């Protein structure tokens, strides 16, 4: 720590060039005081400039002189300020939104030509304002459903919140809400995600060329930031949907200095009641989310934020069987300016994920609980060295406790005893540094590395086996004891990161990137889609860190004054120690779970074509991804290579919105993808009275292709009292317009008639396809004031 702060001090003094001055400050929305991320700050007439960082902060250093600085941002009016630079200047800017309807004053913006000029490739800013106009299942605006439409991203099917990025598995995505990790982003097993659209300010998906400030997962980073709260005036928003209702309130605590935002969302239990409450049973099914945040500013160089999220799903059937899961996160953040050019963000993070299964029964009653807790301290610094170099560096420290499961009896007469699967403790130190350097007017480089020092520590009693991969005859040879804090296993990995952009001309560029990623927290799932009851495990005595090397190149081109953006990217990703379970793994009530772990290799390669139109009445994007993902894991499929569960070769996604006028907006989504691989029988045999499938090859078949069209119409009601702030909006949407029965999964059974009676002598087998959603309309009323 001391060394670290000395470094800061050295940087902020040593590099202080005497002959230059700095202009810095925050850029905000004039209407609600929200900081704007990615605002272009341009020195007029010179071509040099910068963009605001994740906290809306910018810093630009210039020789003394007179300058006009232009601030521009999509959806906002440009602003030009004149400076006579004879000393350092602090200048906060408020931009005026061009939005006229309920739809969002906050627009996720970026530099107009960012597609071409930005160093980042394999990257998408998800525009929440546009997502709002697109059709949504049950009318619930969902960030993750939009992530699933991005190039290079594959879904397991509708009704899931999992996504697979460039061949990575579902646990290889780091999902952050205000910098705190979310370990399970699903509500109702994935029908919805945990992100309430009303509080999302900005979100970004990194799938390649991942900057060194991120680490811990192999394949992608989904960073979701919530709004800070209106610091100008009290306001609110909300909605009444067919599945859930929402309310969000925000306002200043001290005008322009401190503000708050709170929001809540809860599903209606009644929706499920008719179907689940049969035979007089009383069933409970619901989920909720709560977000809260406060921020305050102490002068211009200290800002504090405290953010909280909690969400939970709860299911209970007739008071006997119940289960639930939920995430709770807390973030405390301190933005501090050490000097005019050194911006620091210190974050304290706590995250908790847990699930519980319970059976109420006098004899077989038990409760199973599982928990994962994380505490982190992050320190991230931006050092604006000069107009050509921006240094990002910092360290991330975290401590995690994994409690895979405690089974305990919940009545006196229960046949069960209390069993606690051993806890695991993990201590992780990460250091990173990254420099973004402009060389001339054509070339931008970004280079750096992340050092991951991972330790699985005691107290621990590790069971050793004669053969730790033999899950048939498990021969325990003893236990190794580790004291408190004693390292069980230490893994040190260096992750180099590199990216380069070459501007061919002002409207086109070529980019290349390489990144190595390391993952020490694994969600080993045997199915295609993880469920909340899959258990996260850290690297340790038996599990090695997963590693990925990704190479990507791309061509980027804008047309018609940046109105149209086009890109092509090619990637190759090589992954080591990807996790799986052995065939026929015993996952529940298994004291020797580690013998079921398998690690193997995987590779993915692909081409992504993407086109986007960001301005005008017609906006939207279209993408096509051609990719292939293969896996080879000893102990799975006899050690032969097989297509991964998420190997969908061809994927086409299209999302367009059309603003007819101030009142009416229309949206449409079309998606097509090759069916996912599936394991099917090649025959059947009889054993006892059972009619059993004979399996010959893992993932040897494919489900039929998936495709679907959704439409939506948004009507902004003409305000009855235009002088008041209340605005209402109706959203109608139709999911799966042409009523395709898209396969969710496929299973086999002994042929049965409509009433579920076995046909004939029970020797005839049949295959059945499950689909989730036929054509499905929904309706939502949204308001804001």
């Amino acid at each position, binding site marked *: 720590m001391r060394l670290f702060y000395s470094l800061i001090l050295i940087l902020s003094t040593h590099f202080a060039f005497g002959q230059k001055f700095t202009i810095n400050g925050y850029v905000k929305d004039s209407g609600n005081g929200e900081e704007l991320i990615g605002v272009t700050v341009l020195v007029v007439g010179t071509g040099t400039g910068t963009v605001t960082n994740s906290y809306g902060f910018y810093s630009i250093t210039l020789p003394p002189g007179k300058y006009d600085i232009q601030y521009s941002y999509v959806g906002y009016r440009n602003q030009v300020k004149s400076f006579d630079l004879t000393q350092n200047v602090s200048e906060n800017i408020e931009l005026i939104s061009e939005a006229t309807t309920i739809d969002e004053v906050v627009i996720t913006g970026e530099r107009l030509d960012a597609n071409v000029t930005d160093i980042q490739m394999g990257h998408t800013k998800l525009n929440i304002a546009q997502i709002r106009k697109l059709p949504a299942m049950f009318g619930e605006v969902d960030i993750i459903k939009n992530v699933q439409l991005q190039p290079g991203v594959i879904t397991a099917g509708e009704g899931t919140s999992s996504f697979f990025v460039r061949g990575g598995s579902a646990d290889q995505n780091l999902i952050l809400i205000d910098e705190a990790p979310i370990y399970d982003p699903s509500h109702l097993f994935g029908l919805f995600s945990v992100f309430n659209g009303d509080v999302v300010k900005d979100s970004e998906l990194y799938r390649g060329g991942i900057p060194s400030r991120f680490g811990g997962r192999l394949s992608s980073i989904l960073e979701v930031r919530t709004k800070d709260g209106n610091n100008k005036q009290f306001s609110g928003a909300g909605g009444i949907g067919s599945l859930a209702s929402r309310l969000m309130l925000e306002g200043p605590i001290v005008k322009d200095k401190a503000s708050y935002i709170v929001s809540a969302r809860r599903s209606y239990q009644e929706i499920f009641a008719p179907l689940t409450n049969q035979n007089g*049973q009383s069933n409970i099914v619901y989920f909720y989310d709560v977000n809260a945040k406060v921020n305050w500013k102490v002068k211009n160089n200290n800002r504090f934020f405290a953010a909280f999220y909690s969400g939970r799903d709860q299911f209970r059937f*007739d008071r006997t069987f119940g289960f639930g899961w939920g995430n709770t996160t807390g973030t405390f953040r301190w933005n501090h300016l050490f000097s005019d050019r050194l911006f620091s963000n210190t974050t304290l993070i706590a995250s908790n994920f847990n699930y519980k299964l319970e059976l109420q029964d006098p004899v077989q009653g038990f409760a199973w609980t599982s928990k994962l807790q994380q505490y982190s301290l992050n320190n991230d610094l931006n050092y604006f060295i000069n107009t050509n170099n921006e240094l990002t560096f910092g360290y991330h420290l975290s401590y995690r406790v994994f409690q895979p499961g405690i089974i305990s009896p919940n009545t006196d007469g229960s*046949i*069960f005893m209390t069993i606690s699967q051993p806890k695991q403790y993990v201590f992780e130190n990460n250091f990173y540094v990254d420099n973004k350097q402009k060389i001339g007017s054509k070339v931008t480089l970004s280079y750096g590395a992340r050092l991951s020092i991972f330790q699985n520590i005691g107290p621990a009693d590790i069971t050793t086996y004669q053969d730790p991969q033999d899950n048939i005859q498990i021969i325990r040879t003893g236990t190794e004891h580790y004291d408190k804090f004693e390292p069980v296993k230490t893994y040190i990995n260096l992750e180099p990161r590199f990216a380069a952009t070459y501007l061919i001309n002002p409207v086109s560029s070529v980019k290349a990137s390489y990144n190595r990623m390391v993952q020490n927290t694994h969600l080993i799932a*045997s199915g295609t889609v993880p469920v909340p009851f899959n258990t996260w495990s850290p690297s340790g005595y038996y599990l090695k860190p997963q590693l990925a090397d990704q190479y990507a190149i791309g061509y980027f081109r804008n047309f018609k004054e940046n109105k149209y953006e086009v890109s092509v990217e090619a990637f190759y990703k090589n992954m080591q120690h990807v996790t799986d379970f052995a065939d026929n793994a015993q996952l529940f009530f*298994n004291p020797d779970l580690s013998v079921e772990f398998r690690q193997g290799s995987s590779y993915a390669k692909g081409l992504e074509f993407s086109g986007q139109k960001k301005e005008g009445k017609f906006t939207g994007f279209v993408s096509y991804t051609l990719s292939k993902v293969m896996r080879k894991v000893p102990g799975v499929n006899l050690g032969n290579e097989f297509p991964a*569960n998420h190997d969908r070769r061809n994927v086409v996604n299209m999302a367009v919105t059309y603003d007819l006028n101030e009142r009416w907006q229309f949206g449409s989504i079309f998606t097509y993808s090759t069916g996912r691989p599936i*394991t099917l029988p090649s025959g*059947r045999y009889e054993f006892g009275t059972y009619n059993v499938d004979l399996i010959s090859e893992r993932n040897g078949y494919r489900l039929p292709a998936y495709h679907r069209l959704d439409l939506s119409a948004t009507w902004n009601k003409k305000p009855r009292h235009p002088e008041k702030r209340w605005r209402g909006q109706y959203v109608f949407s139709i999911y799966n317009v042409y009523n395709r029965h898209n396969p969710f999964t496929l*299973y086999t059974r002994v042929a049965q008639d409509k009433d579920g009676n076995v046909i004939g002598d029970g020797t005839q087998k049949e295959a059945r396809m499950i689909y989730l959603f036929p054509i499905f309309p929904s309706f939502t009323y949204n308001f804001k004031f």
Partner: protein
Amino acid sequence: MRNVLIILLIGVVLAGCDEPITLDINQTPSRLVIEGQVTDSPGLQYVRVSRSGDFYKNGTTQRVTNAQVIVRDDSGEQMTFTHNPRGSADSVGYYIPSKNYVGVVGRTYTLSVSVDGNTYGSVDKLLRITKIDSMGYRPNVFREREAEDESGDGKIWELLIYAKEPQDTEDNYLIKYYRNDSLVYNNETDVYVLNDYGVGENIDGVPSSVYYAPGDKARVEMYSLSRDGFLFYSDLVSILNSDGGMFGPPPANPRSNITGGAMGFFQVSAMTSKEVTVSGN
């Protein structure tokens, strides 16, 4: 897992459904299937030899009638199993001991099956079984409630099983339920297999998985299983109830203890049973 999660999901989305689909299945060569059982109870020893068939072809799969079947134990005793000695039509493919034969607790048994010049082998150990101390019965709350709604078949009674689970050994059990001497399952893909992980000594009234009507003669058979046996039957549960690899694992062939490339299992068990007539009040 298929049942809980998928049914739940379909319930939640209100409208989801399943429909038949015809698979375009690649033909693979037929595999030999061996099902063998040696217990410590008279009359329960048999080996059935058959072949796998086409997925969509109905009717009994092909039986193998020309196999040489021999069981040996580690005390040197050897028994030849002969094919369907009584020549009954429903015992084609079944091989039974050529004279009275029962297994002995503690011995290890080796099966050898020769078919058309290929030999398949297997080894399993006969482990002790704890007794069922007593059995009772009571109406099942859910079945009773359902029965009020519809006419029902009166099968609302569940058995209650009382036993002492030995705490000094790792034990695995296979349970079979009989209704009026017929083997029954609540669902045709049910396999009642369990192990004692996390289970205490007192088993006081664990309810049965199948239900009975008043007047039914109910019998419970409990078989001891080796670890191999437990794994085989657990794997059988997985494949019979697979959800196609969506939430659960993709279907995989059960781990067999038979060498030589045959499917199936050779089960050696001690067996205990208890019988009760459900009087219905």
